[in-house]
């Protein structure tokens, strides 16, 4: 009698042992817990692993090119620097008297904005981490910039021009 009672009391302990607990936990592991967790590295599908290969594989670097490197940098800074005297000039003159200045300012502003937006896309939605949304946003931005260029040209040609518009709206 006593021995059978001892047997019953020790039975639950075997399930409480390490192996028993692991079996139970793996059986009960719910998928729902991972959707509420913060996932480092951004969106992930099984076809695009966050890190390709093993820890022994070298990092892939982009192909070095002056066009996307130092020339891009220099162009960006020169453009930004040229915007300073152009803006100052637009402040003191009127857009209708100097349509070439107005056109140049409009073109430079759009290019400056495009480079700025492109930097944001590269920083936050890089195609290495976001292989689908990254390129989609890049090409959407390029299409939008083309549309904006056409719109700015139309506005400067058929209407009063950007500087004149800002001056009129400011003093309306």
């Amino acid at each position, binding site marked *: 009698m006593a*021995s059978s009672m001892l047997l019953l009391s020790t039975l639950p302990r075997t399930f409480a042992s390490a192996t028993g607990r692991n079996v139970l936990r793996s059986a009960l592991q719910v998928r729902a817990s991972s959707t509420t967790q913060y996932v480092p590295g951004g969106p992930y599908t099984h076809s695009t692993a*966050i890190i390709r290969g093993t820890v022994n594989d070298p990092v892939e670097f982009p192909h070095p090119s002056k066009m996307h490197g130092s020339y891009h940098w220099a162009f960006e800074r020169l453009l930004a620097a040229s915007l300073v005297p152009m803006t100052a000039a637009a402040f003191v003159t009127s857009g209708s008297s100097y349509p070439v200045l107005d056109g140049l300012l409009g073109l430079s*502003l759009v290019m400056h904005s495009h480079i700025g937006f492109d930097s944001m896309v590269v920083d936050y939605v890089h195609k290495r981490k976001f292989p689908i949304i990254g390129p989609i946003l890049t090409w959407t931005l390029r299409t939008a910039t083309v549309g904006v260029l056409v*719109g700015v040209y139309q506005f400067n040609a058929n209407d009063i021009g950007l500087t004149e518009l800002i001056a009129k709206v400011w003093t309306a």
Partner: protein
Amino acid sequence: MMSARIGLGSATRRVAFAPVIGRNQTVLRTLIPKRGVQIQSLPPSASEEILNAQRLKRPSSPHFTIYQPQLTWLGSIANRVTGGALSALLYGFSLAYLVAPDTFDSAHIVEFVAGLPDYVKYTGKVILAAPFTFHFWNGLRHLSWDMGKFLSLKGAYRAGYAALGATAISTVALVLM
């Protein structure tokens, strides 16, 4: 006698000489086979998938939410945000004019703005002038960094405060224009 032939001799001897408290546990452990553990045979190439699955579950320490606000990075993100907002305005207006030139031509816009109450006009001027002037002066600060000036911490802070002061003054000047 029987146990020695079967081969459980050492096990039963261990049980017999084990302390009384744990004897029943040891009996059960030897008699109940460990069918709770299941072994799955995997090829070595499955290691990458397991590793990436583990990497997904790893937590990330707080970084962006706990970094102390400083003039350096606040000024930098403010430069980007103001630039993005002004560019979005430019893009939005240009695309709207391209799509519907009659609704968005200058006459309509000037008319619409002229009809707004005064306080809305002043608020709108502040909302437009402040980002523009900040982006302008901070842009000059950034260009001076590109030329090698103000690259020390002291220099960056001095230039930052100067840019903020210039922003305030020029915003007031623009709004009163």
